[in-house]
């Protein structure tokens, strides 16, 4: 679960985000909707603990994020939060296998090759373990990014515009994937998107309207 209250963030003296209250149950699946520039990415970064908001309260998995020291926050993020970035950003110098092991290593978890293989298998990637990201198709790379986000069994899984630029068939595939993987590790899922096609597939919607000038 997570909850956000009285959240505000200003950047360069300009308000870019304001959220009164938003709460989600553990394991719930949410869409975060809103037009470009409404602060979707900013809110996602706040939930991920990579951006400290100017004001407000953020709680993820019963942990008050604002109370954590920077280094404890890093540790917490590594262990409990998985992120699928819009442009994936897999590490190209490392193999698929090592990209996933890296996620375990940096989170301070034991490096568990069995778990990595299990995740890769569940995403139909077993034969790509030793490939480098640039050798993968976009679809495969996206699945690797999802695998990397869930390998540590996070409490919260975040995805930033995962379906933009995908045709309808692929859009459905990716969405299914995220829902299934979030469900498999019992993670709360938040998908930031402006893609109207997936609205009907996810029960909970949170609409960001942007900051009134």
């Amino acid at each position, binding site marked *: 679960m997570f909850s956000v209250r009285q959240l505000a963030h200003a950047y360069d003296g300009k308000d870019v985000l304001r959220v009164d209250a938003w709460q989600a149950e553990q394991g719930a699946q949410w869409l975060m909707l809103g037009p470009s520039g409404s602060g979707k990415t*900013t809110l996602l970064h706040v939930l991920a603990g990579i951006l400290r908001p100017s004001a407000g309260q953020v709680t993820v998995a019963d942990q008050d994020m604002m109370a954590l020291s*920077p280094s404890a926050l890093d540790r917490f*993020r*590594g262990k409990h939060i998985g992120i699928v*970035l819009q*442009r994936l950003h897999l590490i190209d110098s490392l193999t698929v296998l*090592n990209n996933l092991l890296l996620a375990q290593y*940096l989170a301070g978890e034991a490096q568990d090759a069995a778990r990595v293989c299990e995740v890769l298998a569940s995403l139909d990637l077993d034969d790509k373990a030793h490939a480098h990201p640039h050798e993968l198709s976009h679809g495969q790379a996206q699945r690797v990014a999802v695998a990397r986000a869930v390998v540590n069994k996070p409490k919260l899984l975040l995805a930033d515009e995962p379906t933009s630029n995908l045709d309808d068939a692929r859009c459905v595939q990716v969405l299914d994937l995220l829902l299934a993987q979030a469900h498999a590790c019992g993670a709360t899922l938040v998908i930031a998107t402006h893609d109207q096609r997936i609205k009907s597939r996810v029960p909970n919607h949170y609409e960001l309207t942007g900051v009134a000038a």
Partner: protein
Amino acid sequence: MNLATISFAYLKARRLNTLLNILLLALGVATIVLLLLATTQLDQRMRRDAQGIDLVIGAKGSPMQVILSSIYHLDVPTGNIPYKQALEISKHRMVKKAMPLALGDSYKGARIVGTTHDYLTHYDAKFASGKRWEKVLEVVIGAEVAARTGLKLGDKFHGSHGLGDAGDAHEAHPYVVAGVLARSGTVLDRLVICSVESVWAMHADHHEIKDINDIANQMKEEEKEYTALLIQYASPIAAAMLPRYVNNNSAMQAASPAYETARLFSIIGVGVDVLRGFALVLVFSAGLSVFIALYNALNERRYDLAVMRTLGARPRTLMLLLLFEGLLLALIGGVLGIALGHGLTEVLGHALKAAQQVSVTGWIWVQTEWWVLALAAGVGVLAALIPAWRAYRTDIAGTLARG
């Protein structure tokens, strides 16, 4: 998966750049190591050859030439000294030990040294085969002479006049090998050693001597000559008195090995310093190149670094990653450079051997090399310092929001 494997993966991903940096560093380190090994061994050998010899007395001329010709057998002698005067000095109360040398002939480039058994004892010579010379014309040969000329126990050969290869052969009297010395790392390795009388005998024809076995008695006193006298002092006071006594009271001159070798090293030292400076420039330009490579790589890797932060990496982990990369590069370059330095020294040793000079080998380890490795490592870490600091300060949200 740890910092080392990640660093290694990044180095591998930029193969060409990595190779260039390693090569640059390795060349610098190799030059330093080559100088280190060569000068250390030269110093060691020269010290060992001159050990226990406090003073050399030879004919007037350059004192350095006297030292080089009579201790190291590198230069030509300044001339000869009269037997009577040499004998007089040998019996001086400040002289503990005096070893005469009679030079002038050679065999295939190896110098023939007429001396006494003391000379062998002085260098603690061990025999590989045979024994010391007993009769006139019997010789003992050094290990390198044996290896190079193929002379064996019992072989006969003709010495040639002069120290070069081109001298006339002394056809009348062949030498015979009575002993072959074991390799000792001293000057003995490249000498043919015999009694003073044997050297005199080569020139016996000039003195109309019939039985060369009795040459010491048949030659007239004033015709006998030595080339030099190696002296060991009886007491430290002799250092102050004896050289002046010799220089003032005879036609001979006294030269101090300690002083002349120090002077020689200060002359060589300038060249060594220049080369060492050049090597340091190489090492530091390697450092600069590593710095530029890492700094540029930061730009390509800004998303990687941001992503690592989202995966839980602390800022200091990223800093360590960059420092480790610099260190890894430096250590590979350093180790490679040390290996290359040893190899080059060995090659140099072979070249010097062909030129009959002081022998140098690459197969030794000098403690100072640890410092060279530390220097390389230091340069690597220093070069990574600024990139590491920038990695430390990675702005995750800002970077990811832009791409």
